């Protein structure tokens, strides 16, 4: 009944989920960095940066991810010639997918972190300024460490959503789980079974993420 699962070698089932993990990890790290920078901009004292951060978040998070990913391929690559230094379409698709996923997910990471910043009492920032710390020092040493510990739970949600969102990359030919699923459905005429296998694969990937990060968020939360 499940013998068809081993019939595919380009990619294999494990390879396809490996690609899903790769997309998740790289764009997860990327969006954590870009999202933190965006959050810093949104709370910074410089109006121009605040304006940019607000505009970015409100525009990007309201565009469907499918539109963003397809735009990277049809718009950026085809029309503007942005190939991300890749010479063949496989690598190009992968890098463009990362670009799209980071751009999109960072907006949500930014808002999660900003909500964490709001949990840090205002007095701490004032105290930091009173002892002569600059804005970036205050953010780096006082605010963000506490903010991150408060938002591990919400960030876990963003990460789980990101894991599932990587399936959109199949639309531009990245050989991840949804890509292999389309391939199998084309050949096998067993839609329900194939769907169940891939749904199970995603549960296996995301359930531990939720459990581990949920446990961490309880351990590390700052008790106030």
């Amino acid at each position: 009944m499940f013998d068809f699962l081993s019939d595919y070698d380009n990619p294999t089932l494990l390879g396809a989920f490996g690609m899903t993990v790769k997309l998740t990890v790289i764009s997860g790290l990327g969006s954590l960095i870009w999202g933190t920078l965006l959050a810093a901009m949104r709370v910074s004292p410089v109006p121009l940066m605040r304006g940019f951060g607000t505009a970015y978040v409100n525009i990007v998070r309201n565009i469907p991810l499918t539109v963003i990913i397809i735009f990277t391929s049809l718009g950026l690559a085809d029309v503007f010639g942005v190939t991300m230094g890749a010479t063949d379409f496989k690598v190009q698709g992968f890098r463009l997918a990362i670009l799209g996923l980071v751009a999109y997910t960072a907006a949500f990471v930014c808002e999660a972190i900003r909500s964490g910043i709001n949990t840090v009492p205002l007095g701490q920032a004032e105290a930091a300024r009173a002892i002569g710390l600059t804005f970036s020092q205050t953010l780096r040493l006082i605010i963000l460490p506490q903010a991150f510990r408060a938002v591990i739970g919400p960030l876990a949600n963003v990460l789980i959503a990101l894991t599932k969102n990587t399936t959109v990359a199949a639309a531009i030919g990245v050989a991840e789980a949804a890509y292999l699923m389309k391939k199998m459905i084309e050949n096998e005429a067993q839609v329900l079974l194939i769907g169940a296998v891939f749904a199970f694969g995603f549960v296996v990937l995301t359930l531990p993420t939720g459990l581990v990060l949920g446990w961490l968020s309880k351990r590390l939360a700052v008790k106030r």
Partner: protein
Amino acid sequence: MKLRKVSAAAAAALVLSITATACGGGDGDNEGGSGSGGGDKIKIGIKYDQPGLGLKEPDGTFSGFDVDVATYVAKELGYDADQIEFVETKTPDRENALKRGDVKFIAATYSITDERKKSVDFAGPYLLAHQDLLVKADSDITEATDLNGKNLCSVVGSTSAQNVQDDFAPKANLQERSGYSECISSLQSGAVDALTTDDSILAGFASQEQYKGQFKLAGLKLSNENYGIGVQKGDTETLNKINAALEKMVSSKAWDKAVKDNFGPAKYKNEPAPKIGVIVQ
């Protein structure tokens, strides 16, 4: 308190509108099922997005070779054109639509394969298509091996994409998109050198008004795709009737006319009408 009232009203409105639309859909279905005086309707599965084969036009009418074949077969089964209801059956939906009895039969670029024969029965074949390449009118690609090192576009998961990767030109730089129309625009802009899928589908795209004269088929026979009409597993009665209808369509030359009408402008060299039950491997 006031806020609660407002949200309760909003929720009630939402529920009402959902049930109202659900009822609307149900009513429509009933009308479709019972018909109005002129006997029962027949539901036929086609594709909505393949010009030349099965296309839903902006004005709601349907065109294409699959549609013409389906209409002819339905007529032989005793249904007039206005008793036909075309239902969209996308590639992953086809087997289930037949299994559940949503449609009587499916004519939707449905290649007869052993895997599919396990869950549905096929009448026909009614057209022998081959995997081919669509290139710009001035292109010098004439062989599959010319593709090595070139940029090639196909659709994610399609058998054509798999064939190229595995067999013909493993060194081709394969760009996979979510639909053929996206590939066509890349071909037009020069981002890819060729587009591959069944020649009938390619001919349909190239025959569209906006692309006339820009592209040509390379004329390669990279695979044999025997298009069949899918019917529910075990429905031998319908199967035999459809086979008889297809034979009549070929002998009465209606088949040739349908091919010419739908694929003509792309200089598509069609195979002669296949014999019923003969699968070209």
